[in-house]
């Protein structure tokens, strides 16, 4: 991968930093003004991200850690870190970071044929292709390998039928990595294949899902006899679980901030500085910065943020040095989820009476609405209960839960049916 194959005689980091600094100043728009992503309509967000990525690509600052043969710059992680630091004041196409750059492109690099890599990685880097993952299904969340979307071989194509859900921003994306069942007479992990799927084509319907807070970023897709060319299989037929495992590894890396492929940082929640100043601002607008209880709560949120940051650091280092195994990443997933629940509680408490009824634009009302999505982080990407299973079984070595489908052919196991397409 790019990080290992960085050329001898690569540009010195500090020289690169200075070059990036002056290029950014001359070419990238400053943050602020009309480009606040929260205010921007969703479809505009995708268009804007592609534009910005295109500017980076033209300037030679896109795909810094991707290999040169696929349109990247073949630079080191240190170059990327320097670039991200320099990019903080500017509007960046952060929408590409997760999952396109940090999860799907690395999986393509790991398993793609030369043709597949050449067809897609350069377009990802130039901002022409946004990718999403088609993993979860309405028939089951935690038990991913029990998926029932089917891909049936038919000559030199596979015919895809079924449904996927919780793909984020699929309506504005171009391609997906999609897991589908290709063999039913073997245990569940051994009958899955991973496909590269063009999203906008006949037979695929993308519906946005309206969430309790009014957002409609998440999507559900319905597949109706979609023909997928056999050359779009990623990895081997029926070996899609190997691809999925690797994809999930990249996901952990991305969530833990360990991916070398992301560029720029977003200013939303999850950025520790912002969540802190947000609560202080809330205390300020409600006139309670001097209230000892409120001071305790704001400090507690700050404590949780910083502890989480150091936990990620410790576990990531442990995994990278081999002292911990991959599943240890579930520890910071669980921490982040429970800490986010607590953050919502704290915000609601500081918001006070204003969380019930408010005047238009009040910050307290915004916190009340955010509270509705309190469990979001504890459900997405593996529920807290799954993370606790993983930690207890694969980190602490406690006995595995009984599984009724262990070593049994999938078609002999009870599972949920795929929902039919709404009429």
């Amino acid at each position, binding site marked *: 991968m790019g990080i290992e194959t960085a050329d001898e005689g690569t540009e010195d980091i500090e020289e690169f930093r200075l070059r990036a600094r002056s290029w950014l100043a001359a070419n990238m728009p400053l943050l602020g003004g009309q480009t606040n992503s929260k205010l921007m309509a969703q479809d505009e967000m995708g268009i804007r991200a592609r534009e910005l990525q295109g500017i980076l690509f033209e300037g030679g600052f896109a795909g810094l850690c991707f290999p040169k043969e696929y349109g990247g710059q073949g630079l080191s992680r240190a170059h990327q870190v320097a670039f991200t630091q320099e990019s903080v004041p500017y509007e960046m196409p952060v929408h590409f970071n997760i999952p396109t750059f940090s999860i799907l492109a690395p999986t393509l690099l790991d398993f793609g044929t030369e043709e597949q890599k050449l067809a897609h990685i350069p377009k990802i880097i130039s901002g022409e292709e946004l990718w999403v993952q088609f993993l979860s299904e309405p028939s089951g969340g935690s038990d991913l390998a029990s998926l029932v979307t089917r891909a049936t071989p038919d000559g030199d194509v596979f015919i895809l039928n079924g449904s996927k859900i919780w793909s984020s921003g699929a309506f504005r994306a171009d391609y997906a990595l999609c897991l589908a069942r290709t063999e039913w007479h073997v245990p569940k992990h051994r009958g899955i294949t991973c496909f590269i799927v063009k999203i906008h084509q006949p037979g695929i319907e993308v519906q946005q899902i309206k969430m309790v807070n009014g957002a409609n970023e998440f999507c559900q897709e319905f597949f109706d006899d979609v023909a997928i060319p056999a050359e779009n299989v990623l990895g081997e037929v029926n070996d899609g679980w190997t691809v999925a495992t690797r994809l999930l590894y990249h996901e952990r890396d991305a969530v833990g901030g360990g991916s070398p492929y992301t560029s720029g940082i977003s200013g939303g929640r999850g950025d520790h500085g912002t969540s802190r100043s947000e609560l202080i601002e809330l205390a300020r607008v409600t006139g309670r910065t*001097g209230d000892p209880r409120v001071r*305790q709560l*704001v400090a*507690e949120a700050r*404590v949780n943020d910083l*502890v989480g940051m150091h936990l990620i650091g410790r576990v990531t280092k442990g995994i990278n040095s081999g002292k911990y195994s991959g599943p240890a990443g579930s520890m910071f997933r669980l921490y982040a989820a429970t800490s986010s629940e607590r953050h919502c509680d704290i915000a609601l408490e500081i918001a006070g009476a204003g969380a019930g009824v408010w005047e238009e634009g009040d910050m307290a009302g915004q916190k009340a609405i955010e509270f509705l999505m309190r469990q979001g982080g504890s459900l997405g990407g593996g529920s807290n209960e799954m993370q*606790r299973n993983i930690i207890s079984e694969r980190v*602490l070595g406690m006995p595995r839960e009984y599984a009724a489908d262990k070593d049994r052919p999938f078609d002999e196991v009870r599972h949920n049916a795929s929902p039919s397409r709404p009429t």
Partner: protein
Amino acid sequence: MDLELTDDQELFAETTAKFLERTCPLPTVREWAEKEPAGFPGAWWRQGAELGWTSLLVPEDQGGGSVSGHGLLDLTLVAEETGRWVSPGPLVPTNLVAAALSEYGSGEQQSRYLPRLLTGEAIATWCLGEPGQSGLPTAITTEAVRQGADLVLTGRKGAVEAGAEAEFFVVAALVDGRPTQLLVDADAAGVSVARAEGIDLVRRFATVSFEGVVLPPEAVLGEVGGAAEQIERLFEVAVVLQCASMSGVIDRVLAFTLEYSFDRYSFGRPLASYQALKHRFADLKVWTEASLATAHAAARAVDNRSDKAFELVSVAKSYIGDKAPLILQDCVQLHGGIGVTWDHDLHLYIRRVVQDRALFGTPPDHRERVAQALHMEQPHGN
């Protein structure tokens, strides 16, 4: 343990662990707690000093020396091990005094006090807070008044670890309202020491009273009125050591509680096989790892004198001080009835963390420090 140790540090931690396991396993800790006035025999502490326990915060040219060049990080390894073994001994107070002398003391003060401290022949301690007060650096009220060239110290200091064993004290006091650190011999006229009761059976604490103790200018550590930074620094070192020790405690207790869950059967299956308990263990593991991560981060920040140290130390104490007692009580629950008996060792560990939680600022005290670090303004009149 920190995941980024040098080979020398790993060896040092291992040597310390083996020494503790050999010389004072928990039955011995209990026996000493009952029979030894100081909680340990003097010869044992001198052996610990030979291993380096008292020298790590003192540079080589003053007779000390560290393992890695980062003495505080080396010392947290000892503190973590003493947590694992609920060890006795004035590790924290002795090192605080050694650090104070080494960093702020005059050559004369150093040559008078340091050598016996480093060999373990003498014990010394830091008198920060007054009885019943928070133990925060900003809370001190004891005063020393000028009398010609001398200072006259009057006041009482509470929760002084190894107060009855100490040969001399470093006392935080106010001179003209400004923080000043004073070296006071235990046998000076006007000094009296009364043993205090404490939740920890193993460590010893005292209340130390100063009734008009006359101190010459040579007793001042650093400048008169100029010790605010010095006191904050020692306080941060103290909290870092507490956090390391509490992390050692929970790491050890979680490990033996997990082991117990494999060995203990009910309804024909090990406790470890019940999902309700597995999920509890998962939480305990996350909190323990988070505690270790934060304790080490705080230690590094104080060691390299980062401007984040003030906040990070309080983040660590707030988190670990809250979580450690909670983790241990859950381990009691996971043990069942045996966990609340005198003969089981769990209460020795709980006593240790409950005491550490309370001293040098409680978690709420430290959250208030975090709020200050965030520049949350206090409205006027509050």
